[in-house]
């Protein structure tokens, strides 16, 4: 399994401990390259990973490293004048390059879905949040209006919102960031997708709310076998959820392997830097000496 592009040195390459050869991957990204057609620059230079059901893959790296573009390519929502110029993405065995718009619409939501940073902006400000979830259920699952409403309230309860009936009838500007991220997750899982991409989903939230959202994602994964792609600039978030980590820098994967191996035995100097900074600037530094003394 060659996972890294030719730009990285061979000794940094790791082979991934495959969870089980039996399950076919929900999402397979193979040596994907993304270019900006205007500046003719290659922004993402060969990213590969496989996501089997129930697995969680993390992508870490600084801003501008190509994490988000990789995810957007997998969802078919690259910004204007960006395009996949090499490699392939397969969702459930289908190459996305061959998909027609109706096929895309059928696949999104019910096979692969996503949540993002700044959840308020990804929900329509003019429609009650519950109605937006019910819309997904109605369209993707063919439920009647009343059943869809009922299902939407159930989903809001499933993402641990304390008063789902009340939240159903509220608008985005009436909810807090943490509640909105829960609503966005509820909308994303409404059509029972098999893979969920969480692109910086907890970045804008404060630490306690972030922990709750991470627990929620872990719970969804455990309960329904939802496969996760967790994108974050924060190594701690990824370490919390994922079996496998990709470390990206300037469009390249500099390190790829099982989470424990990457955390305890980082090979690339950038990964070492990331971990060292956590040691240096994390809270543990201040807590441990006190407890020791």
């Amino acid at each position, binding site marked *: 399994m060659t996972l890294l592009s030719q730009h990285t040195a061979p000794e940094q390459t790791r082979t991934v401990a495959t969870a089980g050869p039996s399950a076919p991957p929900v999402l397979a990204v193979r040596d994907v390259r993304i270019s900006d057609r205007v500046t003719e620059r290659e922004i993402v230079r060969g990213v590969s990973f496989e996501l089997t059901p129930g697995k969680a893959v993390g992508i870490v790296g600084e801003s501008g490293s190509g994490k988000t573009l990789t995810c957007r390519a997998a*969802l078919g*929502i690259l910004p204007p004048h960006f395009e996949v110029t090499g490699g392939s993405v397969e969702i459930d065995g289908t190459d996305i390059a061959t998909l027609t*718009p*109706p096929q895309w*619409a*059928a*696949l*999104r*939501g*019910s096979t692969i*879905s*996503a949540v*993002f940073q*700044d959840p308020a*902006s*990804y*929900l*329509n*400000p*003019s*429609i009650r949040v519950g109605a937006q979830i019910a*819309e*997904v259920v109605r*369209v*993707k699952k063919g439920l009647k209006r009343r059943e869809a409403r009922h299902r939407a309230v159930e989903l809001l309860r499933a993402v641990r919102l304390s*008063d789902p*009936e*009340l939240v159903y*009838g509220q*608008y985005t*500007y009436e909810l807090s960031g943490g509640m909105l991220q829960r609503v*966005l997750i509820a*909308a*994303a899982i*409404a*059509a029972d997708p098999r893979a969920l991409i969480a692109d910086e989903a907890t970045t804008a939230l404060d630490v306690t709310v972030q922990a709750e959202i991470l627990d929620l994602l872990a719970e969804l994964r455990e309960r329904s076998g939802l496969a996760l792609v967790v994108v974050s600039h924060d190594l701690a978030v990824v370490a919390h959820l994922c079996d496998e980590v990709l470390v990206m820098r300037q469009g390249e994967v500099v390190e790829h392997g099982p989470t424990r191996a990457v955390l305890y035995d980082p090979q690339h100097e950038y990964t070492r830097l990331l971990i060292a900074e956590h040691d240096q600037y994390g809270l543990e530094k201040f807590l441990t000496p006190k407890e020791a003394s």
Partner: protein
Amino acid sequence: MTTTALQVVPARRRGAAAARTRHALGRILGVIARSIGIFVPVFLVATFVTFALRSLSGLSPARIQLGENATPEAIQRVEAQWGLDKPFLAQYGDWFTGVLHGELGVSWVNGADISTLIGLGLGVSLSVATFALVIGVVVGFALGTLAALRRTTWIDRAITGFVTVISVMPPFVVGIVLVAVLAVGLDVFPSAGYLPAEQGIGPWLAHITLPALALSCDVIADVARQLRTGLVAAHSENYVTGAVVRGLSPRRIFFGHILRNGLGPTLATLGLKFPALVGASVVTEWIFGLQGFGRFANDSAQAGDVPAVQGVLVVSIVLVVSFNLIVNLVLARVTPASQRGV
């Protein structure tokens, strides 16, 4: 454990439903209260200024009735007849009470009841203005939507060009061209006059089509431009990406999500368009020989018939403020975030 849970859940659900009903009721009451809160002060101030115009203008019924050579005694006698010798605020009080009862007074020129005269003209003008608004909204919507869907293509540019051309053509020019081509040249529509709707919908429409077309150009242009801009802006919002990722079809995303949010500026513009239509009707009514509200306003002003002009202003104020309130209510319904001033 399970039994208590079963009892708790329906009770909670009822509570939530009741809270939702209260919430909705509160919202509606709030909107009504705010509408009244806007309407009443605007109406009071505007009518006061309107009434003060007589004192400021120095016009008097005596000059109209007795001519330039009247004696001061005769003038005083006539002014006393009209109640103009009373203190200003008392005059205002009398007049305002009449306005609240729908009585706008009597014309200085011919002694006719102003409410009746305005009622006659208003039927004509509202028919034309409403029809112009309908044409403007329908055509403007179609053009704006098409331009937004095909943005940056030649269709978009052609629509933008067309819209720019019609936006700079004043209604009287368009009116004259329409009469020359469609009425005189092709004889499709009558060139002038008006028939009330009671005498048949067909003839009524035929008579108001040309003036409505002349007035609608401006509305078409503004609606199309605002809608195009609004839709293009809404199209690049994150919630559109969100809807795409949830697997909704492009058609559903356009009608359910983009259109709804892109509509705000267009609706706000429509709120401003209505007063402009009432104002522009003065000229078009001359061209198409209609005895409408605008022509009545013009004739009254030229004759120095102050009560008639005041009546015209009161009716205009009511029309404009009511129309703006309706637009605001629709806007609040379509984009709830606009209600809290963000």
